[in-house]
């Protein structure tokens, strides 16, 4: 039951958080801290890549909502990459698919970010 969190730059204003493993009450604080680190370093456009996430619970949803709120306050964005239908279903049944922009492919999220922000 572990979570691996990696980050990489997408362009000079946006970064990707790659998650691998389980995001739950034990591991979600790692994701929260990473989002805070990005805010602190002036990165306001964040893509969270859930491609390799095997399990995600309400704690993770709460962290993502909190992150989206904080980024929006700075005119930023928090988008998701989620090709796994089982993980995507959690967003759908809670209605959060209407709150987050969720993409099946990483490249789509990056392209849409470029269009949205004119980067």
């Amino acid at each position, binding site marked *: *039951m572990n979570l691996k969190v990696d980050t990489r730059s997408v362009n000079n204003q946006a970064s990707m958080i790659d998650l691998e493993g*389980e995001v*739950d*009450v*034990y591991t979600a604080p790692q994701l929260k801290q990473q989002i805070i680190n990005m805010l602190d370093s002036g990165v306001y456009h964040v893509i969270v890549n859930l491609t390799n996430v095997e*399990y995600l*619970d*309400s*704690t993770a*949803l*709460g962290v993502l*909502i*909190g992150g*989206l*709120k904080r980024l*929006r306050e700075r005119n930023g964005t928090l988008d998701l990459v989620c090709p796994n239908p*089982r993980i995507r*279903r*959690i967003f759908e*049944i*809670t*209605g*959060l698919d*209407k*709150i987050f922009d969720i993409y099946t492919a990483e490249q789509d999220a990056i392209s849409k970010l470029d269009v949205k922000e004119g980067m």
Partner: protein
Amino acid sequence: MASESTPSVVELKLPCKPEFVGVARLTVLGIAGRMSFSYDEVEDVRLAVGEACTTAVERAVKANKTDTDISIIGSILGNKLTIEVRDQAGHPIDAADKPQTTEVEELDEQGLGALLMELLVDEFNVESYEDGTIVRMVKYAE
């Protein structure tokens, strides 16, 4: 195999700490795997029980009661799986309503766990007792 009138019961006791919630989920996978659930239904049960344990842990952290235990009792009777998650963490569980808004600023990030539990199982109820809370969930296999 148990007869139709005698449930097969699995009991598990865990520390009410974040790092043990995954152990509860693994156990529940094993219990639900004994029944004719689809893959998605087994995942639903895993998530629902994970949420019940998570709310216990979150309340325990707030109430400084992480030295208590969570008891999980899984009972199989025919096509009916009943899982009871009993904690000693006090405080009731509040369920959020399914978000009706598309504005994130209006969104309540609390209570999503109880909402998920309601959505993922066929029967869901919460009962408070002196020391804590009992979440009882039922899922029927086809």
